């Protein structure tokens, strides 16, 4: 995607008649510059010959989506607005990575850093803004950056890869998004904010406090009322010292204290400049041939640092350029914070500065919801929403239109559905009631009218709408609104889509459809499923084949023959592939208990095969690293000889049963947790699952075996066994839900088998128990396992039946010669022979 100083279109593009079109030069390849050109092309594609100069070596991308890139939710490619093809198709010349450094108004030329000079008839300045760097000692140290462009994101990602501590100076929108991303990337983040509450320009004190608590709960340190004295470090940043003397260590400092319109170029060219470049209602500067748009301009004394005003400015600008002037009248702005899981919305004036402003406030502290609407003279002048922002667009629409709300004032705070529908919440009616110019997609500035027109023009799926008018194509927070518009516009013709997440691109069916049909139609092989369910590819892909193989295996135990070519490498090789192509081998240690014979056999294998490392795993067993695929069968034979079998550390299958020592040794133990763990492992080992599955048994509520972050956990108590389900200690930690309490070991075993079988039969492939339970709800699991006794016994029975086919040690089979070709080369290629043949 990167390229430097490269032209994408012919330098001279003449009209067919030979007469050159007027030249429009755009300085700035960012969101404002490109949007202005898009608006212009929409009105009259052949009117100007366009050249765009950009300082960054990229095509046009969506700057406000840098936060999701930092957070790992998007890739750079996904935030590109216009790719190379767009420039080429529209005959636009892009000069990227070569910023304009001067404007000669008399000669009507611009000169770039490389010395390249170009003549213009109309010039558009869209230089945006520069991050404000607070003038403290140490501000120029390596490791001190701003958060403005892709280069900054790359720097942050490189720093985060090393771990350590980061300081973000500035608790505004940008700073908090940077802090969130760095925190997700594993850095320990401290946010330093000068003001007493976060995002004070958008949020009032109460919402700011809720936000601070939420971020602290996520592990960030938030220091408000904190003033930076200096950034310390010798050759590289080492920390930040506050004026009160505190020193916060950091290997990365992100300054996100604000932005300043980038006006240097315009000022040097002698244009009228205040805080920003002065423009009139048609975005024309003090020179009639020079226009300006975006964050670099000042209109009626206002400068804007948000994206929405830019769309309105670009419309006015393009109307002026094609001589059908409409005029820009200033913008009212709203804000959304792009931190996943935290919903914050703010619009208009909420500071109470307007006289006669009245507050309507709703608080629901336990749900973390705060809503405040500011009303003046029966009109909304501001709104702050925290926790539930669904009505943000509606309030904002009422605010922009200045509608009289006196008739709905009593219900206003409960939201649109309630205020207009008398209490019946119908989200579709709410969307239907939005006016045509209500904004649906804030990231790309798309109105309801435009989305509806796009749908009427033939875009009848979410993807089609995204491709045609970009609504919901960026951060995706308006996806629900767009789907409702599809429903409203197309009626019954709209098939819906989000419910059916297809298995992969090879099919239009979802996981649940495929599972149901496999059983209903008695389908017994992968080709049969692909044939009957109209797969679009000859033999699937690496996503659907392993899923189908599992579904068939689960549906027809003892009957279906496993397809090795549809197994991921680890399950095909019964070992874990490592980055250098060698494998690691983990023999099973029942309940984490071992003995001298097993330990000796492992030690012998490590020496005999020169394994460079042997490591204790988190699952209470030993992992032998660096085994070549050719050596695997021999290694397994040696381990088998000492009585050990495969630990399935490589599979979507039962991994380990972790135990503590329990009542046999521990002075706190209430039951024999080790013994129960071993029984559970003997019952469950070898079973294939939708994803990996971990179990633990703790002998008392001190929970040393960490049973409450396992897929199935048993916590022993004096009176019996608490059974816990759906825990996970991975990327997103989730504690288990308590399923029920039972009184005997046998019951614990039976319930465990039933739960596993329910998961095996109903979860989607590659879905861990934690997201599965969040999707279907704990109540459903309780109903199937606890309340429905007959059903539970049937599940247990089906699990044990299936296990009767799956408890043959795959290592023993391979060591005895099965699938030998997996571990041997086909032949050898000897160049000597080749030389002899010449």
């Amino acid at each position: 995607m990167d390229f430097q100083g490269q032209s994408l279109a012919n330098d001279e593009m003449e009209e067919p008649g030979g007469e050159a079109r007027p030249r429009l030069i755009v300085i700035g390849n960012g969101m404002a510059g490109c949007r202005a050109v898009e608006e212009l092309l929409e009105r009259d594609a052949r009117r100007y010959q366009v050249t765009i100069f950009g300082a960054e070596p990229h095509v046009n991308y969506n700057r406000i989506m840098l936060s999701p890139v930092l957070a790992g939710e998007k890739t750079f490619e996904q935030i590109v607005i216009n790719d190379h093809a767009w420039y080429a198709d529209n005959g636009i010349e892009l000069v990227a990575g070569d910023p304009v450094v001067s404007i000669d108004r008399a000669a009507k030329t611009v000169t770039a850093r490389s010395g390249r000079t170009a003549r213009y008839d109309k010039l558009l300045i869209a230089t945006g803004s520069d991050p404000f760097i607070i003038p403290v000692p140490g501000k120029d140290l390596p490791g001190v950056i701003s958060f403005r462009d892709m280069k900054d994101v790359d720097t942050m990602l490189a720093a985060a890869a090393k771990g350590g501590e980061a300081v973000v100076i500035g608790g505004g929108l940008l700073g908090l998004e940077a802090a969130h991303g760095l925190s997700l990337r594993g850095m320990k983040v401290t946010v330093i904010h000068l003001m007493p509450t976060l995002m004070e320009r958008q949020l009032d004190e109460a919402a700011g406090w809720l936000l601070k608590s939420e971020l602290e709960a996520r592990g960030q340190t938030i220091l408000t009322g904190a003033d930076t004295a200096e950034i310390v470090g010798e050759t590289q940043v080492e920390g930040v010292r506050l004026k009160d003397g505190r020193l916060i260590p950091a290997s990365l400092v992100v300054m996100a204290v604000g932005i300043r319109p980038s006006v240097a170029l315009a000022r040097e060219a002698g244009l009228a400049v205040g805080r920003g470049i002065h423009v009139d209602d048609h975005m024309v500067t003090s020179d009639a041939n020079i226009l300006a748009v975006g964050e670099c301009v000042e209109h009626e004394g206002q400068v804007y640092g948000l994206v929405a005003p830019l769309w309105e400015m670009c419309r006015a600008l393009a109307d002026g350029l094609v001589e059908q002037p409409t005029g820009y009248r200033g913008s009212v702005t709203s804000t959304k914070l792009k931190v996943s899981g935290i919903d914050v919305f703010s619009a208009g004036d909420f500071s109470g500065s307007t006289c006669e402003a009245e507050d309507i406030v709703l608080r629901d502290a336990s749900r973390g919801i705060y809503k405040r609407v500011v009303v003046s003279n029966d009109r909304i002048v501001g709104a702050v929403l925290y926790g539930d922002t669904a009505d943000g667009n509606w309030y904002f629409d009422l605010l922009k239109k200045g509608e009289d709300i006196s008739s709905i004032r009593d219900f206003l705070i409960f939201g649109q559905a309630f205020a207009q529908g008398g209490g019946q919440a119908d989200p579709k009616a709410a969307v239907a009631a939005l006016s045509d110019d209500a904004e649906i997609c804030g990231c790309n500035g798309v109105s309801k009218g435009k989305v509806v027109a796009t749908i009427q023009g033939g875009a009848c799926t979410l993807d089609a709408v995204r491709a045609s008018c970009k609504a919901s194509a960026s951060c995706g927070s308006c996806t629900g609104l767009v789907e409702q518009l599809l429903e409203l516009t197309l009626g019954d013709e709209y098939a819906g889509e989000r419910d059916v997440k297809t298995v992969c691109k090879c099919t239009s069916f979802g996981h649940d459809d495929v599972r149901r049909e496999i059983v209903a139609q008695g389908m017994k092989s992968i080709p049969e499923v692909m044939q009957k369910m109209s797969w679009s590819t000859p033999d699937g892909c690496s996503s659907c084949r392993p899923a189908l193989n599992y579904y068939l295996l689960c549906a027809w135990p003892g009957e279906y023959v496993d397809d090795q070519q549809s197994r991921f490498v680890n399950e095909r090789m019964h070992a874990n592939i490592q980055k250098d192509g060698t494998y690691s081998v983990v023999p099973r240690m029942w309940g984490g208990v071992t003995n001298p014979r097993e330990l000796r056999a492992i030690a012998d294998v490590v020496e005999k095969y020169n394994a460079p490392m042997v490591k204790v795993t988190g699952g209470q067993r030993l992992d032998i690293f660096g085994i070549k695929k050719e050596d695997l069968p021999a290694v397994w034979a040696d381990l088998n000889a000492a009585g050990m079998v495969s630990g399935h550390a490589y599979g979507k299958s039962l991994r380990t049963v972790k135990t503590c020592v329990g009542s046999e040794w521990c002075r706190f133990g209430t039951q024999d947790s080790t013994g129960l763990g071993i029984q559970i492992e003997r019952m469950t080992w070898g079973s294939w699952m939708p994803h990996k599955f971990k179990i633990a048994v703790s002998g008392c509520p001190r929970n040393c075996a960490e049973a409450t972050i396992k897929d199935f956990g048993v916590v022993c108590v004096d009176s019996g066994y608490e059974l816990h389900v759906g825990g996970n200690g991975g990327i997103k930690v989730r504690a288990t839900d308590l399923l029920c309490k039972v009184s005997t070991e046998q019951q614990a075993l039976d319930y465990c088998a039933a739960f596993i079988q329910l998961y095996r039969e109903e979860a989607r492939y590659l879905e861990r128990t934690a997201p599965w339970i969040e999707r279907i709800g704990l109540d459903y699991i309780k109903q199937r396992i606890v309340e429905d006794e007959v059903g539970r016994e049937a599940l247990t029975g089906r699990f044990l039946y299936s296990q009767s086919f799956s408890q043959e040690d795959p290592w023993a089979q391979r060591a005895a010669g099965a699938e030998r070709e997996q571990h041997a080369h086909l032949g050898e290629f000897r160049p000597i022979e080749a030389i002899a043949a010449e």
Partner: protein
Amino acid sequence: MYVGDWIDVGPLAAIPVRGSRTVPVAGGDEVALFRTGDNQVFALVNRCPHKHGPLSQGIIHGHSVSCPLHNWRISLVTGEALGEDKGCTPTIPVKVDGGRVLLCRTSTLKAAA
């Protein structure tokens, strides 16, 4: 191309359908032979352009293979990475004659060197 330019590396039957086998090359990179669902045979250097994963261990679908390390999709026909990814693995001419798999000698030596 004369007969001596093709080297017999083994029987076709020894490569499972939608499977792969490897051929070590003395003094060079291993070659991976792939047999696709439509019974064609392809040969590539056994090394993903991304992080050098052994392509022979990937899942084979259509005329492509998904690398076992990070799931890059590599075209068996051109050796190019498919989709968003960029990179290329050398391909080697291969043919099947009388149930035997034959690798092109000069190309193997060149690609594997």
